[in-house]
């Protein structure tokens, strides 16, 4: 996996509120394992056609096991709430090489309103606060809306040879980089 040389600018960290394109007030905050029940509720409502590359799982037991992985202490999670309902979720899961894999999910009635963009930026802001340097993701190459969203936020395509596109972003200068003088 390759990462861009230049880091992007700072993103806003959670918590904060936004007004989405449908004039709904959306609350964005960090989430953890205490939020597993409300996230389960969101994923039980998730439309099958919005699933990608096998996630989220379809059955309750599968969703619970999967949420155990995503809400583990070494991961970072942000959720978007509208009134009492969790309507979106973004997550960073560490890989074995010090980088993080990113995924984002938004319930269908809340798509297309800017919530995905905010969930992404807020999660990356949380990551920056916590010292995350590099983030990557895979996306089906025909998923134009998702690819546009990731590009808008600053992801670059690093591999485009298979069904899945690989994209990555640098949140901070590499910590082993030496400063050049002169």
């Amino acid at each position, binding site marked *: 996996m390759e990462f861009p040389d230049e880091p992007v600018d700072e993103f806003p960290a959670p918590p904060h509120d936004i007004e989405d394109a449908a004039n709904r007030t959306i609350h964005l905050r960090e989430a953890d394992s205490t939020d597993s029940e409300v996230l389960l509720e969101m994923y039980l409502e998730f439309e099958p056609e919005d699933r*990608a*590359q*096998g*996630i989220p*799982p379809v059955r309750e037991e599968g969703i619970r096991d*999967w949420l155990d*992985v*995503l809400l583990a202490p070494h991961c970072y999670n942000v959720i978007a709430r509208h009134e009492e309902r969790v309507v979106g979720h973004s*997550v960073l*899961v*560490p*890989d*074995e090489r010090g980088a993080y*894999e990113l*995924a984002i999910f938004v319930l269908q009635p809340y798509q297309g309103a800017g919530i995905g963009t905010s969930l992404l930026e807020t999660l990356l802001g949380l990551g920056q606060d916590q010292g995350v340097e590099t983030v990557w993701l*895979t996306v089906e190459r025909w998923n134009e809306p998702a690819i546009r969203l990731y590009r808008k936020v600053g992801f670059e395509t690093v591999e485009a040879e*298979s*069904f*899945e596109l690989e994209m990555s972003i640098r949140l901070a200068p590499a910590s082993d980089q030496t400063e050049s003088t002169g």
Partner: protein
Amino acid sequence: MHVLVGIDDSDLGFQALEEVIERALSAGDDVTVAVYGTESTRDRLAAEATERLEAAGLPATIRQLEDRPGAELVQIADSEGFDRLVVSGDERTPMGKIRLGSVAEFVLLNADTTVTVVR
């Protein structure tokens, strides 16, 4: 059925082999195992596959693929009368997303033989 199963040094690769063996025992399939990876890996995989086939009471027909495993699997399956080509998908990402893997992708797009991708 004549089944060609391509395996690499991965959990899913061994799972594919186990599933093929299990089916062969109940359906009477003829199994050929094609191993790929570095030379030392291939030797190790060949020995492991032989052991598993013999333990199941099946003849151990093993081939080593040296070059481009996807292309070789397709070539062998399509030209040597196999009915089924079995390959493993790739390991999932940390998030649990499916990754198809270059060998599975290649055979899916190029083989005339029916393909099974084991998950």
